[in-house]
């Protein structure tokens, strides 16, 4: 934090002492040296990637430095709302969740970077994420990396229950119920598929897979479509899974379900303090690709700390199959990145974007297991089973609606509520209509 404060002081100091000439983008050499700040959300961008950005930025922009500050996902909305409008405190470049992007681009929080679009990768960039950062055909945020969700399974437990890997959505749905009923190891509170009652981020895959959607744009207005017949089909399947395959609590979200896939594990809080120990309680979980680092047998890593070693005999990955056997359209995880409209150093911020979208950095992203924004670099993910599952599950993945009020829908936890009520056996059609009425005004930015 001290570093951040010092950086802010430096910013205000230099902006008050001299009138910074507005960069006209003609020559990078005329840009005044400064310290710029990059906000990264969560810990997905690992230390090696961060070091690369800082070092490369310093080398390419003599006299200027890059400060990286990590913001926890949970606080990001509040921090963006307070910091971005304030020229003295705004970070220059910001990572936002792909679902948060529309809310901020619609109110003008980000700089128009349409003129850089082609230079940064153009049509090679992941188009669904480009759309999430677009307003009236102008680009405000661009994709940073994509993740995707797939299934992690306990092969041994599936085999003990006498089941093959499913190839269609219906087979998946019936298999996880059969495993829960068989419970081959006689475990208390055992789930064939562990799905938290409030876990809408994984749950909406069933809506998407049956051809439904969360919302559509009707003229100028967004309309929530939970009660669309296709959405209802998906939600009904989901309710059956909740009732007969999952023993997760009705208020569990999507946090660390892999704890229940490992033989033994420890739950930790944000500071890494152990808060509980867990044991095998699920045959199947759904999680973003990077979860595979947390799954496996407990071994002692090179640094002497406990680590997880993947074991193909026990564990497997499975891309959720759709109704036709192709990968189901799951919810795409990932982030967008943009320049704050109030940034006092837009030219340096653009220089940073050029580094981020360089082939070299995109390949580094892939090497770290994050889907690179530039689709020509996807091969850098490698070709192990995790990379294959990531690419396959992302091939058909979808985003949440690009509605201006989407961030309020998420922060009001209304979807958590809706899914929790579905999971406890409420009437699907009645609930879907009730929550459509609640969500439609929020989507258009009239909260309350």
């Amino acid at each position, binding site marked *: 934090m001290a570093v951040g404060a010092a950086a802010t002081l430096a910013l205000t100091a230099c902006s008050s002492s001299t009138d910074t000439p507005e960069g006209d983008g003609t020559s990078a050499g005329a840009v005044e040296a400064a310290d710029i700040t990059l906000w990264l959300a969560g810990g997905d961008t690992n230390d090696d990637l961060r070091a690369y950005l800082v070092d490369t930025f310093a080398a390419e922009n003599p006299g200027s430095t890059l400060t990286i500050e990590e913001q926890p996902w949970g606080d990001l909305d509040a921090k963006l*709302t307070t910091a971005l*409008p304030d020229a003295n405190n705004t970070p220059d470049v910001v990572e936002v969740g792909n679902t948060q992007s529309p809310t901020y681009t619609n109110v*003008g929080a980000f700089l128009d970077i349409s003129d850089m679009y082609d230079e940064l990768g153009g049509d090679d960039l992941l188009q669904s994420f480009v759309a999430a950062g677009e307003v009236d055909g102008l680009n405000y945020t661009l994709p940073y990396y994509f993740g995707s969700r797939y299934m992690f399974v306990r092969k041994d437990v599936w085999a003990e229950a006498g089941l093959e890997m499913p190839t269609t959505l219906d087979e998946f749905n019936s298999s996880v119920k059969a495993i829960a009923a068989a419970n081959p190891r006689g475990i208390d509170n055992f789930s064939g598929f562990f799905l938290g009652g409030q876990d809408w981020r994984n749950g909406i895959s069933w809506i998407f897979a049956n051809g439904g959607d969360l919302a559509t744009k009707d003229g100028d207005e967004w309309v929530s479509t939970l009660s669309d017949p296709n959405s209802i089909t998906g939600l009904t399947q989901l309710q059956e899974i909740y009732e007969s395959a999952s023993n997760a*609590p*009705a208020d569990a979200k999507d946090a660390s379900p892999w704890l229940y896939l490992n033989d033994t594990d420890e739950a930790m809080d944000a500071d890494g303090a152990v808060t509980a120990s867990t044991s095998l*309680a699920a045959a199947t979980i759904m999680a973003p690709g990077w979860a595979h680092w947390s799954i496996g047998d407990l071994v002692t890593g090179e640094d002497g700390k406990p680590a997880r070693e993947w074991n193909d005999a026990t564990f497997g990955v499975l891309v959720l199959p759709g109704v036709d056997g192709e990968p189901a359209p799951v919810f795409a995880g990932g982030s967008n990145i943009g320049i704050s409209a109030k940034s006092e150093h837009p030219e340096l911020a653009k220089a940073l974007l050029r580094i981020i979208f360089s082939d070299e950095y995109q390949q580094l992203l892939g090497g770290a297991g994050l889907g690179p924004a530039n689709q020509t670099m996807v091969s850098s993910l490698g070709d192990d089973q995790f990379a294959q599952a990531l690419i396959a599950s992302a091939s058909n993945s979808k985003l949440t609606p690009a509605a201006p009020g989407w961030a309020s829908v998420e922060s009001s936890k209304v979807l958590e509520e809706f899914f929790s009520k579905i999971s406890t056996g409420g009437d699907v059609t009645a609930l879907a209509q009730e929550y459509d009425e609640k969500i439609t005004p929020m989507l258009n*930015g009239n909260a*309350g």
Partner: protein
Amino acid sequence: MPALTRAAPPPPPQTRRRRRRTVVPYALVAGAVAILVLAMGYPLGWQVVTSLKEFGLEQQFGQPAEFVGLRNYAALATDGYLWTVVARSVAFCLVNAGLTLAVGIGIALLMNAVGRFPRLVLQISMLLAWAMPVVAAMTVWRWLFDWRRGVVNWLLDAAGLHGFSGHNWLERPASFFLVATIIVVWMSVPFVAFSVYAGLTQVSEEVLEAAQLDGASARQQLTGIILPMIRPVLSIVLLLQLIWDLRVFAQIKMLQDAGSTPSETNLLGTYIYQLGTGSSDFGMSSAVSIFVLVLTVALSSFYIAALLREEET
């Protein structure tokens, strides 16, 4: 004991002495008032103004904010959900303040009655409970009530209540608030106990002894002598408890993050936070804040009224 032979001191003569008008008391109060105005005045003013505006995320990013008069308040008054939250908050506040006071007075009386060593143990354990930071305490409580690995479920299960194996305490609002009440009361009892204990040390032994000789039972001594004598302490402690329990935020927010359905467990504090930080509807959330301010003043009016009465006598 010469207490019984000594007559009670005569009441102070009710003569109206003319006070010399000096500026000293005003000067002494001025510092506190200045700090209050500086620290609270600006945010309060901003809040009042914002509550009269249409102020959302667009306005936060520089769009002009339109004055809409009392429209936010009108929307609040006709919003059934707000009244649900208000009723919930007031009920939660009264139950918690009442319980805290009852338990706190009980522990204070206990401290007064036991010997030095047990009293020391009581005081140390209460200090520890009181000194524990909210976030750390909440982590422990969440852990205790964890659905799968919690000690509470394990104990109940071990005691033969097998229905509690894997029971989720935060899922239903009723048991959510039971857990919240246990936590809030646990955290605020020490303050009440210490304050009341301090008050009890001022109750003179002689009076109680006289009452005992007159044949007053322990209950009569408590209700007839002890409680009336420490009434000033009780009323200020009750007032503070009411104000704190009406604005309770951190405990509820952290329990909501651990589980539960926010719309069914929101109290005023978390509702304001959700409107402001969550939905970026700053106009509405300011209006609710002003409403809570008025509610707090209404709740504490009994104390202000009592103060004014004392001034007049």
